[in-house]
C-alpha cells in the first residue's frame, strides 16, 4: 500500500491590484473506499478575510475564501499525505449489460438512486451530442457489460487520440475534441462521460493527481507531476469503477482522488471571481512523492 506526500501549489500574479476576490477551492482530497487522508492542510497567502470549509453538494471537501484587501498575488498550497489501498481490477464481464441501465431495468432498489442518477443527467461540459452518441454506439457492442463498454471507450480514446495541450482550452466542446482527436486529460474525460451518458450510463468526472514514474534508471523530477482527470462509471455490481482514458488504466494505485463531479465545472481545483487585477499569470506545480517505509500501516 503506497503512501504519497503530495504538494499542489498554485500561484497567481496580477498585473494590477485585485480589489476583492472570491475563490472556491477543490484541492482537498476526499475520502474514498481505497484511499485515506492522513494529513492535509491548505495554506493561503495573503491570509484571506474569510475562509470556510464545507462539503459541497457532491460530498467533496471545498474551501471558500474571500479576500477583501487589495492584493497583487495569491498563492494556494495544498499539502496532503495519503494512503492508497491495493485496488483489484473487477471482472469487467461480471457487470450487467449496459442496456439494463439504459432502459432502467435496474432501478432504485439496485442502487440507481438520486445520488447515482445525478451523474447520468445534464451537465454543461459533458452533454451527450449526436456525434458523441454515434462514437459510443460504434465503439460499444450491443449486449456488452457496463464495465466492458467503459473499458472499450477508454481504450479507443487512448489509442486514437493524441495528447496535445495546444489544441484545447478549459471549455472546449466535446464535439471538437472528437473531431480533432486530440486534447488533454480533461477533454478525454469529458468525451468519455458524454459518450457513456449518451448510452444512459451514470458516469462521473474525477479530479485528482497521478503519480508519474520516471524512465528506468532516472531520478524522479520534483514538481513535474500535474493535476489529472479521469472518469468513474457505475454498475450495480461494483459501484463506481475508475477508468483513465489518458493512460488506459483502470482503478490504479497511481491515482489519487481529490473530488467527484458531473464535469470539470463542479470540481475545478481553483475557481474565482476577481474585481480588478488586469491580466494575470499563473504557475502550478504538483509533486506526488511516494513515501517509503514508515508509512506502511499495520494491515
Amino acid at each position: 500500500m503506497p503512501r504519497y506526500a503530495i504538494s499542489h501549489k498554485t500561484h497567481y500574479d496580477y498585473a494590477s491590484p485585485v480589489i476583492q476576490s472570491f475563490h472556491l477551492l477543490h484541492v482537498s482530497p476526499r475520502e474514498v473506499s481505497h484511499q485515506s487522508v492522513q494529513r492535509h492542510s491548505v495554506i493561503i497567502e495573503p491570509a484571506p478575510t474569510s475562509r470556510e470549509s464545507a462539503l459541497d453538494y457532491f460530498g467533496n471537501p471545498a474551501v471558500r475564501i474571500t479576500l477583501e484587501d487589495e492584493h497583487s498575488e495569491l498563492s494556494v498550497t495544498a499539502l496532503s499525505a495519503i494512503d492508497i489501498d491495493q485496488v483489484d481490477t473487477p471482472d469487467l464481464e461480471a457487470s450487467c449489460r449496459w442496456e439494463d441501465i439504459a432502459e432502467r431495468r435496474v432501478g432504485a432498489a439496485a442502487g440507481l438512486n438520486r445520488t447515482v442518477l445525478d451523474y447520468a443527467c445534464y451537465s454543461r461540459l459533458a452533454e451527450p451530442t449526436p456525434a458523441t452518441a454515434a462514437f459510443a454506439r460504434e465503439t460499444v457492442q450491443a449486449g456488452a457489460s457496463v464495465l466492458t463498454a467503459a473499458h472499450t471507450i477508454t481504450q479507443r480514446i487512448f489509442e486514437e487520440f493524441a495528447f496535445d495541450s495546444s489544441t484545447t482550452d478549459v471549455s472546449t466542446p466535446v464535439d471538437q475534441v472528437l473531431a480533432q482527436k486530440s486534447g488533454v486529460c480533461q477533454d478525454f474525460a469529458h468525451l468519455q462521460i458524454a459518450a457513456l451518458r449518451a448510452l444512459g450510463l451514470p458516469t462521473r468526472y474525477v479530479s485528482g493527481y497521478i503519480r508519474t514514474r520516471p524512465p528506468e534508471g532516472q531520478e524522479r523530477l520534483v514538481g513535474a507531476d500535474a493535476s489529472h482527470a479521469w472518469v468513474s462509471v457505475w454498475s450495480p455490481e461494483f459501484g463506481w469503477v475508475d477508468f483513465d482514458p489518458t493512460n488506459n488504466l483502470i482503478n490504479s494505485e497511481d491515482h489519487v482522488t481529490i473530488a467527484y463531479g458531473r464535469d470539470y465545472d463542479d470540481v475545478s481545483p481553483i475557481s474565482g471571481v476577481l474585481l480588478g487585477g488586469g491580466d494575470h499569470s499563473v504557475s502550478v506545480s504538483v509533486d506526488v512523492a511516494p513515501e517509503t517505509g514508515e508509512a506502511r500501516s499495520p494491515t
Partner: protein
Amino acid sequence: MTASVGEQEVEAGISPSWTYAPVSGVYDEMMDASGAVRPAWRPLVSRFSNMSEAVLSDRALKTEHLLFENFSDPQEGGPPWRLDVAPLMLGEQEWVRIEAAALQRARLYNALIADAYGPQRLFTNGVVPPDVVLNDPSFLRPLHGVTPPNGHLSMLALDLARDPSGDWRVIDAHAETPAGHGYVLANRMMMAEVSGDLFSSCRAYRIGQFYQAFADSLVARAQSDDPTIALLTSAPGEPAYLGHAYMGRYLGYMRVEGSDLRVADKRLYLKTIDGLKRVDLLLRGVEGRRCDPLELAPDGFQGPAGLVSAVRENADLVANALGASIVENRGLSPFLPGVARELLGEDLLMPDPPRHWLGEPGVRDHVLSKLDDFVIHDAHEGIGRPGEAQAGQRAASMDPDSRAALVENVGLRGGRLVAERPVGFATAPHWGANGLAPAPYALRVFVAALDGGFAVMPGGVALTIDADSAVAVTSQTALSRDVWVAGPNPPPPAISLKRIVRENAVAPRQSQELQSRAADNLFWLGRYCERAESLLRILRQTLTQTAADLAPISRRRHPLAPLQHLLMKDEAETDEQLMLRRRLCDAIDELSAAPGRLHGLPNTIDNIKRTALQCRERLSIDSWRILTSLSTRGLASQPPTLRDINGANGRGSHGLEDVLAESAPSNALDIVENCDALLEQLAAFAGMTHENMTRNRGWRFLDMGRRLERAAQLSELLHALFADAAPDEEIGDDMTFALYVADSYLTFRSRYRFAPDLKLMLDLLLIDETNPRSVAYQLSRLSEHIGQLPKSAGDAHRAPDQRLALDLLTQVRLADLDQLAAVSEEGRREELAELLGAVFAELPHLSELVSRQYFSLADEQPRRLQSQTRS
C-alpha cells in the same frame, strides 16, 4: 339608455349591428352554445353595443399610440406587445375556482421546491423520478440544504387555458422572475386611459391593493423599518428589461444590475455614491443560475459574485429564492397529482394538460411510436415573458432529415423534453380588423406571498395564442388583453392604480441612495446634452453668418474657424493648412451627419439616448419622450453618397481660395431650421429637468455634467476665435458669432449699445457670474455642486476635485480684462490663450476626479478566474 336596459337587450344575443360567431363545438368565453352572452360579459357587451365601430377602432388606435409612446424601445422601434381594446371578462364564480386552484399551486410548488432542496422525499418515495429535476439546468445544486424561512416562492405566475370543452388547465408556471407584471400594470393604465367609464360600469376589481399588500409584506419580511429593497434586472435593451423596470417603478423599488451590487463579508451591498449600502431584500428579475459567477453558472454575471454565500447567511435575501424555477419544469406535469397527495394531502384542483416526460424509456418508446400525434417541447424553457414560449417541434410537418434529428434528440435528451398532444383551446373575443372575432387565448394569473399565505391578483393578462403550434403560450406579436374580474356590487374601495403610475417622481428611498451607475449616467447625460447643444449652436451660427450674409465671406479669414477645433478632436491630422482646405459643406456634414465621429452630432445623440436609457427610471415620461425623439435627420447638406465621395476625394484638393469663395450649402436654411428644432427639444429637456426634477443628488450630477461641458465648449470656442488677434474688420463678426453661440447677444446689446468691444464681450462671456452662459458661472456652479457631494460635505480638507474646481474659478475671477485683451508682438492674446487653455485642459481632469470619487465602483467589472487541469 340605462345599463340595465342594455343588459336585458343583450340577454338574447348581441344587437343586430354586431356579429360574433364562436367556432362551433369550441367553448367561448363570451357566448354560450345557444348564442347567449354569458352574465359576466353583459355590461361590457351592452356598452360595446352602444359604440360605433369607428369609436372602437379609434380606441384601438389610441391604445397602439399609447403603447408606442410609452413602451417602445428607441433601439428597436415598435412597441414590444399589443393590447386589445376588448378586455377579458371573468365572472365571480369562475374566478373563485381559478383563485382556489392558483392558491393551491403556490402552496404545492413551495412545498415541492423545499423538498427538492431539502429532504428529497419525493425522490426517495418514488413520487417524482429524480432525473426530472436533476436534468433541469435551473436546479441549483449549491443551494441544496439552504432553507428560506419565508419559503422559496414570493411570486408565482400561472398560464391557464381552457381546452375546447371548457376545462381549465395550468399550461405553464413561472417562478423565475416576476414576468408579466409589467404588462398587467401597463395594460391597466392604458385601458383606464382609453375605456372611459367602461371599467367602473363593469364593476371589476382593481389591482392596486394587491400590489400594495405585496409591497407591505416584503417590507415586513425584510425586518427593518426602512429596508432597502432592490429589483435585480437585466440591462436596458435586454428583452425582459422593460417589463421589470416598469414594475420596479410602480412599486418604487430601485432597479439594479449585477454590477451595481457587491457581496462583502457574506452581506449584500449596493454601490452608491456614498459607498456601499446594505441591501435587505433582492427581488430577482434575472435567471437564478446567472446570479453568481462563483458558485452558479460560470458565465452568469447578472448577479454579484458571492451571492450564494450571502444567501447561505440570510436565506431570505433573494425573492424568489435562487433555484425556485424548478417548478416551471413541464416534465413534472404527470407527477403533480402524486406530489399534491404526498406533500399537501390534497387532490390537485386544476391539472396540467396531458403531458409525457420523455426521460422514462417506456414513455419515450410510446411517444416515438406515435410521433406524429405529438408536439415535442423543452421541459424547461427559462423564459417567462408572456407570449414568448417556444413553439415546440411537430414531427408531422417535418421533412425526413429534421424528423430523424428530432428522434435522435428525444433519444439523447429525453430527460429534458416533454411530449404533448395538441388539443386546441377555448376562444374569447378579440377586436381585430374585422371587428369582434373569437380567438384562442391563455390567461396569466399572478400569485404573491403575503403575510401568512398567498393571494391571487384579481386580474391578469390574457394573450391571444396560436392554437395549432403549441400547448404553451406562444404568440409572436404578443397580442394581450387586460383581464377584468367581475367583483361584488358595489366594488371594493381601491387604491387608484393610475394615480400611482402617473407619479413620475422618484420614490423617496431612491433619493436617499444614489447608485454609482445612475450618477455616472446622469453626469454623462448632462455632458452629452450640452455637447449636442453647443455643436448645434456653432453649426447654426456658421450657416447663418455665411448664408444670410450677415458677414460677407470675403471679410472673414475663414468661415470654418469655429468648426476647426471641433473637427480636430477626432482627427489625427494636425496639419492646419490641410484642415483649412476642407469645403464648408464637408465640414458641416462631418460634424452633423457623419457616423462614427466621436465628437460628432450623431454619436453625441446616440450617447444621449444610451445614457438616458440607463437612467430611465429617473427621468419623467415627458423627458424620456423628448430625448428618444431626438434625430439628426435633415442636418446634412449633401446626400450621403455625395458626402462620401467628397470625403474621399475632395479633402485637400481645393485651394484655400476655393473654400473662401464657396458659399454655404444650398439647403442651409433647411439645416438651420432643423438645428432650431433640435435645439428646441434640448431646451425643453433642460427646462424640464430645471423645473421638474427634485434637487436631489441625481439632479446634481446631471447639472454638473452640463456645467462642465458648457464651460469646456465655451472656453474652447473663445480660444479658437480670439487667442490669435484677427484684423480689426473681422473681430466684430467673431464677437457676434461667440455672442450668438453663447446665447448672450441680446444681453450684450442691451448693456452695451455702442461699438462692440472685446473686453466687454470677454467680461460677459468669461467673467460675469450673473450670466448663466459665462464660463465663470459654470465654474461657480460646479464648485458649489462638488462642495455638496457626500465626500466633500463636512470635510475640513478639500478633496482634489473641490480644489481643482475652486482653482479654475479663482483664475477666471482674478483675470484682468486689459491683459486678456492685450495683443503681443506675435499677434497673439497670450493671457487669454493661457487662461482659456488652462480651463479647457483642466476640465477633463476634473471630470476624471469626479468619476474616480463617485463612479469608480460602477466601473468594476468582475472577471472569472479558473485553474486548469492540463495533464
